[in-house]
């Protein structure tokens, strides 16, 4: 072949090499971050939860306000429950959550909040009425809150302590009211 008869051996200019390697590095970093994100579970206990705002459905209030900021709830244990009306397992725990809420409501040290994950309002209202839910509930608009918690599905429940630090994560429905109370009592006792 004519292979060996080349008079000039032109390598790749350095700046092109730099571009090639940089592009490769950027791609790898993106993929690595994406992978890390997908491998991460939900927000883990011990993490400080930043502020978010939940606007309630009509008819629900917290201290006569139609919305609540997490930062307003410092000093209380917050139980944040993600649910949806199309979610069958959510129905299993709805009554348990309401019962648990009733037993802590008077005390004022614990607050339950329901965040309705990608749902339709008429059905969501129907669900809340059906299970007689009294603690404040609102739609997770634009899935902002659930994306922050990196929820994997519904139902999921997050227990945030008085300092705004996540203490416990429940994936899937609760099996009994006692289970909920036990978790809350542990946090209260700290």
């Amino acid at each position: 072949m004519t292979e060996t008869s080349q008079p000039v051996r032109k390598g790749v200019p350095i700046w092109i090499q730099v571009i090639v390697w940089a592009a490769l590095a950027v791609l790898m970093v993106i993929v690595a971050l994406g992978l890390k994100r997908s491998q991460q579970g939900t927000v883990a206990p011990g993490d400080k939860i930043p502020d978010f705002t939940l606007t309630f459905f009509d008819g629900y209030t917290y201290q006569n306000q139609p919305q609540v900021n997490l930062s307003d709830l410092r000093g209380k244990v917050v139980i944040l429950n993600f649910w949806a009306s199309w979610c069958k397992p959510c129905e299993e725990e709805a009554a348990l959550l309401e019962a648990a809420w009733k037993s802590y409501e008077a005390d004022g040290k614990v607050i339950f909040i329901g965040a309705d994950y990608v749902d339709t309002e008429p059905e969501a209202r129907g669900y809340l009425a059906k299970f007689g839910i009294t603690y404040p509930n609102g739609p997770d608009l634009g899935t902002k809150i659930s994306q922050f918690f990196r929820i994997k599905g519904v139902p999921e429940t997050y227990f945030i302590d008085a300092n705004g630090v996540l203490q416990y994560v429940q994936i899937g429905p609760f099996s009994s009211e006692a289970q909920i109370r036990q978790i809350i009592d542990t946090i209260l006792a700290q």
Partner: protein
Amino acid sequence: MKKNIFALVLTFLLAGLWAGSALAQGKTPTDDDVNAVASQLFCPVCENTPLDVCPTAACKQWRELIRLKLSEGWSETQIKEYFVAQYGARVLAEPPRQGFSWLVYIVPPILLAIGAYLVFTTLRSMRKPTPDVAQVSVGLETTVDDDDLRRVEEELKRLQ
């Protein structure tokens, strides 16, 4: 001939647009009206499934929601905006043309232009004078040797 086709094309394009805008409004929305909106939206929980074909119970609820909004006289754009506000930008079939998402539309044309430029310059630099049009050679050690001439002649012969 080609110009005629183009004129025809234009005529029908306009005709098509006119027919499209004359959609029926008001009254009870039919399944087709619902599907027309739903097909442009994606299911917020199942990945990459358009709302009009998604079989889950949740999607059924969303389709009913579209029907409700349509019967209240909402326009397609309003419904889409409502869905984005409720469930985030991922319900749209394409990223919204704003902010960071502009990148998705800008980057491919830029890369394509760079690619086209690279190919063009490569062609230019590889090109050498053709036998009939003698030019100054652009680039490397180029001489028109007998082999090249013979090859070109044979090809010309074959084409005749």
